[in-house]
């Protein structure tokens, strides 16, 4: 955990403390602070905007209810991501699993300021992610996208660190073999290669 992470966690804890006293302004600050990363995290599970908003609100509703019982065993961000992950899985069971796939409204959804390079990068990424399982996509997002450690991811997904390592390994191998471009054909190998 670097200094920035420590500072932001201190701020998050203070916000949680205020929330436990019924401070809705603190809730609004935390909501704004986490909305972007939660949105991106949840798009690895579903493409439906209404479901994403529902999950985010479920997550913060639980955080509002349990703010007083947060003991600080982990960082606030880890705690919140864990709640969001479980709410996301629950939403998937209710609404049906929608893997990452090309959407006919993709062009409409892509922000107008998106540059061609970014659009190309998104397409490149979605080609890889669509080959991964939901759990592998989540691990990739948490490690590369959010920047969590293996221990954090294990807490979020409520599984052993070894399971996280295995998911990360297999996801990386799949991405390496699927994603075109920089790695080059000559560098592609199978999982069974030494």
């Amino acid at each position, binding site marked *: *955990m670097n200094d920035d992470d420590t500072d932001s966690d201190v701020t998050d804890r203070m916000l949680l403390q205020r929330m436990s006293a019924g401070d809705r302004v603190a809730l609004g600050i935390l909501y704004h602070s986490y909305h972007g990363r939660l949105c991106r995290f949840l798009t690895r599970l579903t493409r439906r905007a209404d479901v994403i908003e529902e999950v985010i609100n479920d997550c913060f509703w639980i955080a509002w209810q349990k703010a007083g019982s947060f003991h600080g065993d982990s960082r606030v961000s880890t705690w919140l991501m864990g709640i969001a992950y479980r709410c996301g899985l629950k939403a998937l069971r209710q609404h049906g699993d929608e893997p990452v796939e090309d959407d006919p409204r993709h062009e409409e959804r892509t922000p107008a300021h998106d540059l061609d390079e970014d659009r190309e990068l998104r397409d490149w990424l979605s080609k890889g992610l669509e080959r991964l399982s939901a759990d592998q996509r989540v691990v990739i997002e948490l490690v590369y996208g959010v920047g969590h450690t293996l221990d954090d991811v294990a807490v979020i997904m409520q599984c052993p660190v070894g399971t996280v390592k295995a998911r990360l390994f297999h996801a990386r191998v799949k991405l390496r073999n699927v994603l075109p471009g920089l790695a080059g054909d000559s560098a592609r190998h199978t999982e069974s290669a030494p």
Partner: protein
Amino acid sequence: MTFPMDSGKDCVRAWEMMPWVLQDSATREQGAWLEDHLAQCEACRAEFAQQSRLRLALSLPAEVPVDVEAGLGRLLARLDTPEPQEARPRSRAGNWLSRALVAAVLVQALGIGILGVKLWSAGDNPAYRTLSQEPREILPAATPGAIRVVPDACMTLADWNALLHALRLQVVGGPNDVGAYMVAPVSPASTAQHALQQLRTTRGILLAEPVAATP
């Protein structure tokens, strides 16, 4: 777990280290070591380039637009709305079950009660008789003017019949183990007392006693 590169331990170490160097959680020494390794290893360099691109792609904002202000507004509105209690449907289902059980118990109790009353009322006067049961003796009180008569064993049937006919009597019971008959006047008009006196004076009648006078 095997690694997807045909390299030695250094490549394996580099493979494991890449995500943490990319997210800036590796130590400075680890970062420097990886940098040295990448300078010498083309495969790992290509891998690291792809990993960097992956991180860059994953850091792009979500492409599914979700309005943060609208979402927060709905969340705040939700906080003001009492959550529907999940226990309510359960308790409703519980009530339904309880009521059904109570109704079943009441029906059973009612049935048992009716059966009990029926058995109790039928207990004094059963509507059946087993083959081993003795036929019920005619109650003396039910036959007015009944007389218990023991004729002599030598008395002929003709004499017995003639005597009964003369005294306007009829056999209503017997003979029992000692050969006693129960006789009664044929019609209420006949006098039992007179018949009793006649019987006592008749030869061949060993005993003649009114049933009512029996101790």
